[in-house]
């Protein structure tokens, strides 16, 4: 694909986007599910679950060795033909759309519970969707900067849970390695689901300034995500213990709420202002991925797709009923999505290994980044 070199993603922006799309809303709810299975050894399951993103990075390495700077959608069309390739791309896009709807619903639930009890889920979903369309229409440069900003906000929010080491009890992590292997593996699979969305790194290669550093940057991102997930689980365990954590919907919030400041009666007040930024960042990345893929499939104006996909994201998000129903749906659907992604990415990588380097038709993606001065 032809790209405008002056507006390509820097290393920091790339890492921020991949981190933003992985470590988003799932981190708040993940500890409860994992601790329910693996108890005090749930932190070990984080490493087992990390095998999935590392596998995707390996596939990206195989692909980028022969096709540096080419997005997976173009390779799909190249190897499988236009019809089948676009069909697979459409399924790929459907994943992002599905995740976007679940994030809107999840964000609405958490905000209604903690802050805006007087608003309906429909109103919240509408506001999120409008912000999505506005943000996505500004192009990848703006999205990248929002991700960099959101990364630091996320670190700040997560760092507040460090109070667990002051007020908590490290004995809650013991005894170590007391859980059986089957439970650990089951918990590992449970932690693999929050790692999904790393496939975004297969969409971004054309926009990366240093294309030869794709694998290195991806590995750095995975390491940061592993650390962040470890932190989330360990702080939850240290503060609440393995018995209480599974009973909370969002254990991290419980930890942060315990901070007491002089003027503010409840630290939750500050978190409630910052959480939506974190949600929005993840939501925006998912939405951008879906718009980019649909634009690749059907062509047309990028900005028009930003508007066209909005009702497709908005309406399903209104029908998840409640948080329990949403999580049940995710528990059923996400494994199938993960299986599809593994097959899809592996097939592409195998075709790359079999066929070797070939000419891939380029497309102009300037409008995805931002109009540059003077154009």
């Amino acid at each position, binding site marked *: 694909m032809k790209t405008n070199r002056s507006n390509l993603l820097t290393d920091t922006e790339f890492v921020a986007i991949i981190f933003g799309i992985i470590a988003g809303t799932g981190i708040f709810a993940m500890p409860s599910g994992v601790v329910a299975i693996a108890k005090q050894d749930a932190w070990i399951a984080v490493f087992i679950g990390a095998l999935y993103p590392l596998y995707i990075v390996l596939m990206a390495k195989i692909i980028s060795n022969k096709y540096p700077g080419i997005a997976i959608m173009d390779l799909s069309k190249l190897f499988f033909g236009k019809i089948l390739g676009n069909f697979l791309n459409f399924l790929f896009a459907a994943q992002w759309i599905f995740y976007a709807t679940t994030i809107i619903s999840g964000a609405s639930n958490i905000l209604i519970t903690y802050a805006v009890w007087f608003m309906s889920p429909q109103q919240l979903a509408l506001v999120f969707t409008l912000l999505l369309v506005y943000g996505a229409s500004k192009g990848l440069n703006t999205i990248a900067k929002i991700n960099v900003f959101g990364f630091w906000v996320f670190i700040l929010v997560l760092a507040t849970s460090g109070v667990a080491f002051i007020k908590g009890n490290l004995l809650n992590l013991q005894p170590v390695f007391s859980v059986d292997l089957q439970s650990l593996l089951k918990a590992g699979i449970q932690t693999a689901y929050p790692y999904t969305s790393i496939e975004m790194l297969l969409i971004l290669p054309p926009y990366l300034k240093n294309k030869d550093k794709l694998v290195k940057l991806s590995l750095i991102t995975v390491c940061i995500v592993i650390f962040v997930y470890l932190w989330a689980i360990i702080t939850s365990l240290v503060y609440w213990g393995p018995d209480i954590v599974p009973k909370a919907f969002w254990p991290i919030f419980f930890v942060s709420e315990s901070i007491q400041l002089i003027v503010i009666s*409840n630290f939750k007040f500050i978190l409630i202002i910052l959480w939506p*930024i974190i949600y929005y960042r993840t939501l925006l990345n998912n939405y951008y991925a879906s718009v980019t893929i649909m634009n690749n499939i059907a062509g047309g104006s990028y900005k028009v797709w930003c508007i066209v996909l909005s009702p497709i994201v908005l309406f399903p998000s209104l029908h998840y009923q409640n948080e329990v129903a949403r999580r049940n749906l995710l528990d059923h659907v996400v494994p199938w999505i993960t299986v599809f992604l593994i097959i899809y990415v592996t097939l592409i990588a195998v075709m790359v290994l079999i066929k070797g380097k070939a000419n891939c038709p380029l497309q102009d993606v300037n409008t995805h980044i*931002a109009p540059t001065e003077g154009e």
Partner: protein
Amino acid sequence: MKNTVNFREKVKKNLANTLGNNCEFDENKQQVNDVASMDEPLNELKESQQQFVNMLHFAQSLVTFTKKIVSVLKKGQSVGKSSELGQEYKKLVAQSITSSPLLLADIQITIDSLIANLGATASVKVKRFYIGKGSTALTAAVVYIENLAKKDIIDHSVLTPLMLKVNENLGTVKKISEYLCSKYIVSSDTSIETDFCKVVEAVKAGKTVLLLEKVPDFIIINTSGGGSYRAISDPVNETAIQGSREGFVENLDINISMLLRMVKDENLTVENFTVGKRSDTRLSLVYIKDIADVDVLAILRKRIAAVTIDFVTAASMVIQLIEDKDYSPFPRAFTTERPDRVTANIMEGKIAILLDGSPTVLTVPAVLWEFFYAVEDYYDNVVMGSVLRLLRMAAALVVVVLSSLYLTLVKFSSELIPVDFIVPIVRSRSGIPLTPFLEILVLGVIVEFLREGGLRLPSKIAQTISIVGGIIIGDAVVQAKIVSPTTLLTVGITVVSSFLIPSQQMSWCLRGLGFIFLIMANFMGLFGISASLIFLLIHLFSLNSFGVPYFTFYGADFKDTFIRGPLNKMRKRPEIIPNNDPIRQNKNSS
């Protein structure tokens, strides 16, 4: 060299054969006199050839002009109402003057054409006189615009020497214009012009033109500076306790001279433009050639050239015409009246835009952070400079968010207010008929009325309005139970915080944003504040100022963004502004 000499000799030989008696060509010698006598007719031939070419060009322009008139008439439009055709007609007249030296035989025709192009006939003065004596006296005229040109210079430097001191026969002098400039006109700034359009521009700028009968050149003497201008004084809107007391004035040349006094770098460049089709206002770009980014310069030049408005009277009008058209309330050019600020900015790679008639100077590209810097940040020590800067940024946050946070806490999330505060708040709000949102909105609007009223009124009455408005009305609304004391306190803190923001435009922008945050908080509580913050972030991240991102972070610039680091540590220019020379000082400087 040998080929050039051979060719020259061949031409002279041919010329000698053509011109006959007055020319001699000696094949054996290279006589200086011969060269001179051969060169004269050669030069005359070249001049005639050039005049012939000029007349051909004029004829071509006339044909094109006629075609345009025909097309306008065919469309059924009136030729007289077309300003474009009017401008073109004036150019055609100007071209006719320079293309046909026969017209110069009568100086009155030239004078009439000049007056027609200048437009303001009542202010145009013409002084006809004779240079030299006897029958060979040369008819001349000076033309200038009253109140733009300094008459003293015209009288002493032009008229006195030419009318009284010329006692020789000027008929034999070949290049009369240059001769007069070198020998008789007592002025340090003279030039000889052949383009009639430039002569008209020069007279409009306050210069004087000396016309000589039968001579195709125009002598321009710089006599600008006529009329009275405001003297250099303290900048009204940007005071500083330390630092210089000079501020820009309305005269462009004086403003440029102030910058030239502060920056003696040989790379300091001044580029001149004219904007406004009818006002012909002079605009200058000032930058340091080896620091400023060429891409930003190219964008700036392109946008200035694209301005087609008929008049501009202020630099802020210019920036509205050349900035990115995205309807953002955030200012994309930094406005200042202080030469020291402009100097500091151009040293970072920015470009200053100065407009004749405007005491405010713009520097571009501008980034969000610089609107929170004061000039004294760099005159104070590190600690004070950093603390004050952080204070200003905190004040900006207060202006935008405080009122909406207060509204949210009082209306939706009172459980988040500490117990010690909630009792007095509830007590103070008892008996208030308005909702918290309306209280804050009404107070905010009244404050804006007072602020705007204070700007427009004479200073003595403005002091009264601040006392009447601030104290009397403020006290009265509380006693009348229109608003609660805590609401008044919140709005008062917001107003005071807005005074800390050094840039007026940024202050207005943030106050406007405060109202938007308030409305969103009224409908959506804390989420409304978050949603507004998200919207604001998207907007800021997507803004550009002449190709430079408006709101971004660079780690290397941290020492001059939120804090003001030690001056000896600022070895490089800010990365956020593209420049060609990143090193500001050497590593070992103390």
